[in-house]
């Protein structure tokens, strides 16, 4: 396998608590993003997906969090130790960001065109050239009548159009990576389908790599090349869509079984017992053990297991991957 574009290894993120040791919210996160790849990041609410994303754009500190250890390699840079000066060369330039709520991500009192030009200015383009480029970008994200939309404010656009504008802002600087954190949550299914189609088209046209965060496995399956699954602040399985469809971690297997779209109408749906352990209450050993049907005494001792390969490009954090396969 050639060197990945982005390589997150053993990432540990915590929230500072004065004199007490930091509260660890992400631990042993590993993610490798290949060039031109659409990589799905899946997990329940609170599993640490958004924190991993924030570590890629240097906004952890806004939530009082910071990287405690591990590395986030983007080429020669290690973003885990980046200072603000380094972030200014990365955030919005090499890594673009699309937030969950486009209304929160866009400035309500600034026109769409002006917001785009703010991003465009980073590439050194100004004045009338920047105006032209803004319209071009809107056209690129398939917004009809881009000249008119450029003069409008975010509240005048529909949710789907706002999300298109966010994507236009994210690609304005020609980044290597776009991080899209639940970009279609709260949007209608038809709009969601259009946004996903757009994201795939933009990827194909520009060769950008995409990290797509979602808890919708059906969506991830349809759009992504590879998937990483997070549970309780850690990555438990990663692989291609096809590989993860035959899971080797019991959490992934349980997620797959709880999918409604694969169930017969009215049949009893399989659910996952309990809830992920809350941050600050992580017991020794595997953090899925309390929810796992195949947990053994060994699972509750020592460190949480790290991802280990089971096939080329397919890794699981379960030391008993064959048990999950046999149970399927």
């Amino acid at each position, binding site marked *: 396998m050639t060197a990945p574009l982005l390589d997150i290894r053993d990432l540990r993120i915590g929230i500072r608590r004065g004199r007490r040791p930091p509260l660890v919210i992400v631990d042993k996160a590993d993610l490798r993003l290949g060039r031109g790849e659409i990589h799905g990041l899946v997990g*329940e*609410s609170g599993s640490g997906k958004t924190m991993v994303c924030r570590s890629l754009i240097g906004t952890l500190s806004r939530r009082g969090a910071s990287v405690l250890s591990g590395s986030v390699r983007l080429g020669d840079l290690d973003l885990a130790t980046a200072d603000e000066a380094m972030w200014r060369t990365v955030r919005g330039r090499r890594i673009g960001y699309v937030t969950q709520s486009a209304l929160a991500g866009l400035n309500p009192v600034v026109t769409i065109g002006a917001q785009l030009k703010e991003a465009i200015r980073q590439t050194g383009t100004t004045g009338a050239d920047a105006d032209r480029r803004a319209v071009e970008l809107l056209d690129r994200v398939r*917004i*009809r*009548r881009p000249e*008119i*939309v450029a003069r*409008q404010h975010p509240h*005048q*656009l*529909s*949710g789907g*159009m706002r999300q298109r504008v966010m994507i236009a802002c994210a690609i304005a600087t020609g980044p290597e990576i776009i991080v899209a954190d639940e970009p279609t949550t*709260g949007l*209608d*299914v*038809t*709009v*969601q*389908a*259009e946004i*996903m*189609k757009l994201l795939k088209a933009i990827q194909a046209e520009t060769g950008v790599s995409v990290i797509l965060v979602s*808890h*919708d*496995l*059906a*969506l991830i*399956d*349809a*759009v992504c090349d590879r998937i990483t699954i997070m549970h309780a602040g850690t990555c438990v399985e990663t692989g291609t869509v096809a590989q993860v469809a035959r899971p080797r971690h019991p959490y992934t297997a*349980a*997620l797959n079984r*709880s*999918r*409604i*779209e694969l*169930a017969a*109408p*009215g049949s*009893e*749906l*399989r*659910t*996952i017992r309990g*809830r992920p352990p809350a941050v600050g209450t992580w017991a020794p050993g595997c953090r899925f053990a309390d929810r796992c049907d195949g947990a053994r005494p060994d699972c509750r001792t020592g460190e949480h297991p790290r991802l280990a390969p089971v096939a080329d490009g397919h890794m699981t954090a379960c030391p008993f991957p064959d048990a999950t396969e046999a149970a399927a």
Partner: protein
Amino acid sequence: MTPPLLRATDVSVAFGRGADRVRAVRGVSLAVEPGESVGIVGESGSGKSTLARVLVGLQRPDEGTVELRGRSVFEGEGAYPGALRRQVQMVFQDPYTSLNPRMSALDAVAESVAFHDRCTRAQARDRALALLGDMGIPPGDAVKKPRLLSGGQRQRVSVARALAAGPSVLVADEPTSAIDQSAQAQLLNLFNRLLRDGLAIVLISHNLAVIRYLSRRVHVMRDGEVVEEGETERIFGAPSHDYTRTLIASIPGREAAGTEVSPQPTTRDGNADRRIDLQAL
């Protein structure tokens, strides 16, 4: 012939006046029987939630009738007179805002019990605990405030609160859209059990997988109108309306199966759409 449990006939609702008038629901009819779930799908602005509010009596229709076992529910000034009130209850979309943040789950449900039944506080508490237990909320979690509960748990508290009235119809407006997949599965299992016990459920969702799983019949709404209705399996297998086809093609993974997603031109009226209309200019 006995009349249906709950029946809406030619219901229309409009908001605003003059040029701002929006016809949110236009001549919609539907009926639901005990132990049956009827699904309503459609995108934002299609009138689904307004219809739901009419069914539970929160919104008076401008035209048309709603009848519970043949009795009109909009008599006089109010809705659901007397003993009818408890019969139709609602579960709202957002479990983060539909519960009072200062009330424990137990108090929220006990309040509903006490409102609908004459009983002592202790009796209301006991009944609330039993209901919550039935919904998979153990006593230890029942005494917690909503912010300490997960989205799925909150949604099940909302269902318990609705059931505290002892309804025969539950109207659930996008109950699964704000919760995780595993919590969704839990909630749907619960709904299935309630259906088997004879409850009628009107399920509103834009998630077709959820509708397909739970509802035997479905109404597809667009611009306030029902554009297609019938057996869910038939509609999924052979949709006859273009809009239904678009909806089905929008299910993730369907595109790969050969059906191209074609965005519908947006020509709806009303506030939400003046924004979108720019696209269609």
